[in-house]
């Protein structure tokens, strides 16, 4: 499956992205486990008054979620970290 991660916003307003095709990875089942651990919901609303935070946009197959950087943790953060580490920059 294809996973896209995009980071926008931040003080510098720079956009960066990474993607993986998990079927082409050495460890497709590890990736499936990561995706399987994702909660149904993602914290999309930023905390009030937060400014210059990053925004993470994560697309797994055809489902896209948007998570403020200050709320990225747990399974979503684990997925993002792995895509950044092993994925291809877009």
């Amino acid at each position, binding site marked *: 499956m294809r996973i896209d991660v995009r980071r926008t916003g931040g*003080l510098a*307003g720079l956009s960066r992205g990474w993607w993986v095709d998990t079927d082409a990875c050495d460890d497709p089942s590890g990736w499936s486990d990561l995706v399987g651990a994702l909660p149904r919901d993602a914290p999309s609303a930023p905390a009030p008054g*937060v400014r210059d935070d990053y925004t993470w946009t994560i697309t797994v197959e055809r489902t896209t979620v948007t998570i403020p950087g200050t709320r990225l943790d747990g399974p979503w953060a684990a997925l993002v970290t792995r895509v950044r580490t092993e994925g291809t920059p877009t």
Partner: protein
Amino acid sequence: MTPTDRVHSVVPPYLLRAVADAPAFPRASEAARNALASLDTVQRPKHDHRVVPQGVSGAVDRSPQRTISDAHGSTTLPGTTVRHEGDPDSGDAAVDEAYTGLGATHAFWLEVFDRVSIDGAGLPLDATVHYGQDYDNAYWDGSRMVFGDGDGEVFNRFTIAVDVIGHELAHGVTQYTADLTYQGQSGALNESVSDVFGSLVAQYAARQTAAQASWLIGEGLFTAAVHGVALRSMRAPGTAYDDPVLGRDPQPATMAGYVDTTEDSGGVHTNSGIPNHAFYLAATAIGGNAWEGAGAVWWDALTSDAVTASIDFAGFATVTVDAAAARFGAGSSRHTAVQDAWRSVGVLD
């Protein structure tokens, strides 16, 4: 007379000034000059609740009340307290730069606009440094500033630029005044207001005139490996960097280049280039110290009830033009400079 006891004249100050300058009426002009001298002619912003919060009683602490905390590379806030107000340098560059920058920002608001801290009521100033790992960012969390150390390859530590510190604290000032919604044009105005006042904090600390200022935001943040001078340029949006890895500075200088996007809350860090450039044009046309000319006009606008949370570029521009007329006189060169600036960037006709 304290700044809160300003006398309000029946004859508006700009009319008194016109009479004071009239060569044909020497007695009237002398009378007008005397009247002006007895007035605090810096008109009080119309909506006091944005200048000083309601319900504040007792003495306000006019000292910065700084507390710097260390997150030790974690994302847990606030972190451990490492420097209190009045403590000597810690030896940690990020801690000490945050401390100094908070102080410079506090001094700017107090000395230039008689505003006691970002809420006008002596709110303590808090910052956390060493946040995250290779964290290429700084942000305002609604009550404190948070700074990353950068990655050391592209970005240096984010406390290194005093205008960045001023930028983040200005988000707090906006929060307590116009509270511009962080989306679309109002969001780009929110970002621009932070760049404007962040830049003014740096200019004031260095006692630079508008002509001497660099009009760059975040100079020193990029490492030497980056082909760029700053995050943004108010003088020339779109020219701050052009790097094989980072890409090119995407900021437009005029409405013709307005970026329609859903990213970055509708491009708030990109389209801010347009009102930024208007401020630069107004400030340099007026000359002298930017905080006394265009800065005072922008402050009047920010504290005016006419600037609503969802205002767009044209609405904000109109308020600044009206504010310049009120402060400096309709038809004055400063009024014209503000109007011309917004016309040059295509926001007003």
